[in-house]
């Protein structure tokens, strides 16, 4: 693999320093003979275009996965087998999970990384532009395969996104091998993306920018990328063992041949728990960028944020079995995983405290990105607190595999990670498109989302405590009220995301207030020195960076 940097045209005048108020300088086009139309997007090696592709793909998957969630919520609107049959219900819950995790949230973060990391560290592009193109296009292939399993005989995967053996092996539908292929492709895409991001961050920073001068979004992604390198091979290993069990007569997970179904869970969660942090660490980086901007005050505890992110990442490798408290671990193991899980709450708490200390004595205004970030902090904290409750092993016997868990991880992932992604979109849309997102639509989107998301997931705490197991298509009558609320909330949240699409369409069509280079008053960072919209090629000459003046950790 030969690393290749994008060619550097000499006649090109780099943009440096502030070009406040400047409109887009048209200089992207004359670089090379570029194919036009569809081919251009197919072959692009430009980090901004690939970033856009990633994010549009994630949005599409968000809607597909969301539609599946709404099918689930429609079935659960009232008790009884009312709308779909259980086989299809199981396929919907499984596909919803897989698509949202691997198709929506992860690609959305990778898209943000592609767009933002080079412009935040003053690099001309990602370190490996062609590899970048390849790792994106693996995703549509992967998810086409995954979605096509729904139309195969026996249907698509129906064993939950955690695909526990032997339900997914000995008892899986015939399409399971295609599911494994799709997961392999998505995994390879993630690994390649991670390598690219690490290579970019470690080598292409503008001169004088030390690691401790990088914006937190870059830091969180650096750590996330290391997590990906560490755990994606484990996922690949697990699904390969499944494939061997299914097709080649091995018995890794089959007790009949001397295997152990619990081994599957250990391996899966050894991947799966760091995976959870892969889906939240970049969100921490986003919020750490937005809160200081609109509090007009520097991020409190930059260094401790970096340290906390790193220790969360390291600790995430030693807590996996808290997903398995009911499989019958010996007492010592149970205690070990309970203690380590409780301890991981400490660095996570530090982050929340840092954001609040950033707000304290700031000069706060409530633009759209700030609203989403504040909602993120509150809602993520709710998810974190229910996480602490889940860490207490004896009590987890009552919570495990109920809607309480569903409420917990959705609070972390939807009002958490998804809100952070939406915050990021509203924050950087002026930079991407050159116009501010429409405030009226954005406000409506925000409030409907907040109400919808909490109406969906907050009652799930209660249905879970009251005893409703997860992944059931039909339930006892005492859960009916909570489920009806959740379903109403789910549809409200789902439909209000169409407003977001409207906001994006308006931005793409340049309908809206023109944004200057420094789109937000309090924003810091190299990306705000670029005109809005940022031209296709930026920082061909590394920008000037003076740590004493520009570093987020300066004194």
């Amino acid at each position: 693999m030969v690393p290749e940097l994008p060619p550097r045209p000499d006649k090109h005048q780099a943009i440096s320093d502030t070009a406040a108020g400047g409109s887009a300088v048209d200089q992207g086009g004359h670089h090379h003979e570029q194919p036009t139309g569809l081919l251009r997007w197919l072959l692009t090696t430009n980090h901004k275009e690939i970033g856009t592709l990633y994010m549009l793909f994630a949005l599409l998957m968000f809607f597909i996965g969301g539609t599946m969630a709404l099918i689930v919520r429609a079935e659960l609107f009232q008790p009884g087998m009312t709308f779909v049959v259980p086989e299809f219900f199981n396929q919907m819950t499984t596909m919803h999970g897989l698509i949202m995790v691997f198709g929506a949230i992860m690609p959305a973060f990778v898209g943000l990384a592609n767009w933002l990391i080079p412009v935040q560290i003053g690099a001309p592009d990602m370190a490996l532009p062609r590899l970048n193109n390849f790792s994106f296009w693996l995703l549509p292939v992967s998810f086409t395969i995954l979605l096509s399993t729904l139309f195969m005989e026996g249907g698509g995967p129906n064993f939950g996104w955690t695909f526990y053996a032997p339900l997914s092996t000995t008892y899986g539908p015939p399409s399971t091998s295609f599911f494994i292929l799709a997961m392999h492709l998505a995994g390879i895409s993630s690994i390649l993306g991670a390598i690219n991001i690490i290579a970019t961050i470690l080598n292409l920073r503008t001169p004088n920018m030390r690691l401790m001068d990088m914006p937190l979004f870059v830091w969180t992604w650096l750590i996330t990328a290391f997590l990906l390198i560490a755990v994606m091979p484990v996922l690949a290993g697990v699904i390969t063992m499944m494939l061997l069990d299914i097709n080649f007569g091995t018995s890794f997970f089959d007790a009949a041949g001397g295997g152990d179904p619990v081994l599957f869970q250990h391996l899966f969660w050894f991947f799966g728990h760091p995976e959870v942090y892969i889906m939240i660490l970049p969100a921490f980086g986003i919020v750490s960028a937005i809160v200081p901007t609109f509090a007009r005050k520097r991020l409190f505890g930059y260094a401790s944020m970096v340290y906390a992110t790193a220790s969360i990442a390291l600790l995430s490798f030693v807590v996996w079995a808290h997903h398995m408290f009911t499989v019958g671990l010996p007492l010592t193991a149970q205690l070990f995983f309970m203690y380590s899980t409780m301890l991981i709450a400490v660095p996570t708490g530090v982050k929340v405290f840092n954001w609040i200390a950033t707000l304290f004595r700031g000069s706060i205004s409530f633009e759209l990105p700030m609203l989403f970030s504040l909602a993120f902090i509150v809602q993520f904290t709710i998810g974190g607190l229910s996480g602490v409750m889940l860490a207490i092993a004896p009590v987890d016997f009552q919570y495990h595999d109920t809607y309480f868990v569903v409420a917990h991880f959705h609070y972390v992932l939807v009002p958490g990670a998804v809100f952070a992604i939406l915050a990021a979109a509203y924050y950087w849309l002026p930079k991407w498109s050159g116009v501010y997102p429409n405030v009226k639509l954005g406000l409506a989107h925000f409030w409907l989302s907040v109400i919808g998301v909490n109406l969906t997931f907050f009652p799930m705490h209660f249905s879970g405590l009251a005893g409703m197991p997860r992944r059931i298509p039909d339930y006892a009558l005492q859960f009916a009220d909570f489920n009806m609320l959740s379903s109403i909330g789910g549809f409200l949240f789902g439909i209000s995301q169409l407003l977001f699409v409207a906001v994006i369409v308006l931005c793409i069509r340049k309908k809206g207030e023109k944004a200057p280079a420094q789109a937000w008053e309090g924003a810091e960072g190299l990306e705000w020195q670029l005109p809005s919209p940022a031209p296709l090629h930026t920082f061909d000459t590394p920008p000037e960076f003076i740590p004493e003046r520009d570093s987020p950790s300066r004194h």
Partner: protein
Amino acid sequence: MLQVIKSVLAAFLGVQSEKNRQQDFQSRSPWPFIVTGVVMTLVFVLVVASVARWAAS
């Protein structure tokens, strides 16, 4: 080395004094920190494991 260990320990708690932080900034290579971090994680695992073993007995 002692300095690195101290920094990593502080990092686990998310706390670092001003002076030490400045010192950390001076070193350009992150590798000592990464290696120490992994080693400290192992130490952490052993400590928690022995606490668990003690509590279980």
